[in-house]
C-alpha cells in the first residue's frame, strides 16, 4: 500500500501507468456516457411535474458534484504538496483548477437553462446555483494567483495555501448560502437524489452518466497532468527518451 503510494509520487511512474490506463479509461467512459445519455435522453419516461425538461438534471447534478469533489481533490493535493513536498501533487492540483472551473460553468449553465421554463427566469438566487457560483469564483481565484507568479514552485505553494484556506471555507459557504436562501425564499431544486419518489428507470441513467462524467473528469485531469510532467521534467533522462520517441513519430506531420 505505502510502496504503491510512494510510486505514485514519481512522475515517471505516473506517466507510464496513466499512459497504459488511458485506453481503458476512455473506453469505459465512452461506454458509460453513451449508455447513460441515450437512456436518459430517449428512453426514460418524462417526469410528471417537469416534463422533458428534467432530462437536463442528468448532466447538471453530476457536473455540480464533480466540481465540488474537484475542489476537495485540489485541496488534498495542496496539502500533500505542502506537507510532503510531492511535486506530483502540485502538478495534479494545477490540472484541477481549469477542469473544476469548466465543470462549475457547466453546472451553472445547465442549472440556469433548466430554470428558464421552471422559474420563468434564467437566474434565481437559489442556494445551489449561488454556492456553485461562489465555487467558480474560488477556482478562478486559484488560477489567477498561479498565473500571477513567475516561479513555478512559489506559485504552486501559494495556490496550495489558498486552496487549503478555501477548503475550510467551502462547507461554511455552502451552509451560509443555504441558511440565507431559506431566510429569503425557497425555490424548487433540481435533484435526482430523491430515489424514494423516483422509479429506478429515472435514476438508473443518472448512475451511468454520473460515473461516465467522473471517468471523463479523470481523463481531463490526467491529460493535463501528463503535459505538465513533460514540461517540468524535461531535463530528466526518461522524458528525453519519451520526447525523442514521440518526436520521431510526429516528425512527418509536424
Amino acid at each position, binding site marked *: 500500500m505505502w510502496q504503491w503510494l510512494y510510486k505514485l509520487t514519481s512522475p515517471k511512474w505516473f506517466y507510464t501507468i496513466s499512459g497504459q490506463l488511458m485506453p481503458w479509461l476512455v473506453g469505459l467512459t465512452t461506454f458509460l456516457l453513451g449508455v447513460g445519455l441515450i437512456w436518459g435522453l430517449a428512453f426514460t419516461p418524462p417526469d410528471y411535474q417537469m416534463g422533458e425538461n428534467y432530462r437536463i438534471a442528468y448532466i447538471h447534478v453530476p457536473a455540480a458534484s464533480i466540481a465540488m469533489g474537484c475542489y476537495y481533490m485540489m485541496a488534498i493535493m495542496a496539502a500533500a504538496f505542502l506537507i510532503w513536498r510531492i511535486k506530483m501533487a502540485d502538478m495534479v492540483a494545477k490540472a484541477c483548477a481549469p477542469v473544476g472551473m469548466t465543470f462549475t460553468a457547466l453546472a451553472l449553465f445547465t442549472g440556469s437553462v433548466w430554470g428558464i421554463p421552471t422559474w420563468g427566469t434564467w437566474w434565481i438566487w437559489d442556494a445551489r446555483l449561488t454556492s456553485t457560483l461562489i465555487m467558480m469564483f474560488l477556482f478562478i481565484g486559484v488560477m*489567477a494567483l498561479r498565473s500571477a507568479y513567475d516561479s513555478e514552485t*512559489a506559485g504552486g505553494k501559494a495556490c496550495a*495555501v489558498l486552496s487549503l484556506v478555501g477548503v475550510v471555507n467551502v462547507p461554511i459557504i455552502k451552509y451560509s448560502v443555504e441558511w440565507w436562501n431559506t431566510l429569503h425564499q425557497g425555490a424548487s431544486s433540481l435533484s435526482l437524489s430523491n430515489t424514494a419518489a423516483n422509479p429506478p428507470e429515472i435514476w438508473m441513467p443518472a448512475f451511468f452518466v454520473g460515473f461516465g462524467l467522473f471517468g471523463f473528469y479523470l481523463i481531463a485531469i490526467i491529460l493535463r497532468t501528463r503535459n505538465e510532467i513533460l514540461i517540468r521534467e524535461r531535463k530528466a533522462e526518461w522524458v528525453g527518451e519519451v520526447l525523442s520517441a514521440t518526436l520521431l513519430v510526429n516528425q512527418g506531420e509536424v
Partner: protein
Amino acid sequence: MNIVKATLRRELLIAFRSPGDIINPLMFFVIAVSLFPLGVGADQEFLREIAAGVIWVTALLAVMLSMDSLFRSDYEDGSLEQLLLSPQPLYFIILAKVCSHWLVSGLPLVILAPVFASMLALPEQGLFPLVASLLIGTPILTLLGAVGMALTVGLSRSGLLLAVLILPLYVPVLVFGTGVVDSALNSLGTAGLLALLGAMLILAISLAPLAIIAALRISVS
C-alpha cells in the same frame, strides 16, 4: 508575551505616524455609503430595506482595501524577512500585527457604522445588532484579508488579484452579518447568529495566522 505587546505598540505607533492609512479606508466607507442613496433614490422605505446590506458590503470592501498597508512596507524594507527568521513565537506576533491593523482600520468602521446606518433609515432596533455583528465580523474579514495579502505581497500588481482571491471567502461573514440585523428587524433572536459569527472568529483566529505565516514564507523566499 512581551513581544506581543511590543509588536502591538510598534504597529500602532507606525499607524498613527501615517494617519492616511487609517483615514483613507474610513473615507472610502463614508463616501461609498453616501453614494448609495444617490444611486437608488432617497425613498426611506427602500433605504430601510437595504441599509444593513449596504453598510456590510461597504465595510467589507473598506477592510479589503485597507489590507495593502498591512505587510507592504515591512516587505519592502526587509523587516518581514527578519521577522520570519526571528526565534520569537511567530503565531502571536502575526496575530498582534493583524490585531493592531484591525484596531486602526476595522474598529473605526464599527464605531461609525450606526451613524450611517441611521442615515440610511435603519430602524433603531437594528442598530445594536449591526454594531455587534460588525464588531465580531470585521476581525474575521481582517484575518482572511491578511491571508490574501500575505499571498500577494511579493507580486507587483496585487490590488485586484487580492479582491478576486478573498471576496468569495467573505461570503459567510456577509450572510450571517446581515442576517443578524435582519433577524433583529423581524423581532427574531440574534444570539444564535452572533454565536455562529463568534465561532467563525475563533476558527479564523486559530487557523488564519498559520496560513499567513506559510504564505509570507512563500512570498519572502
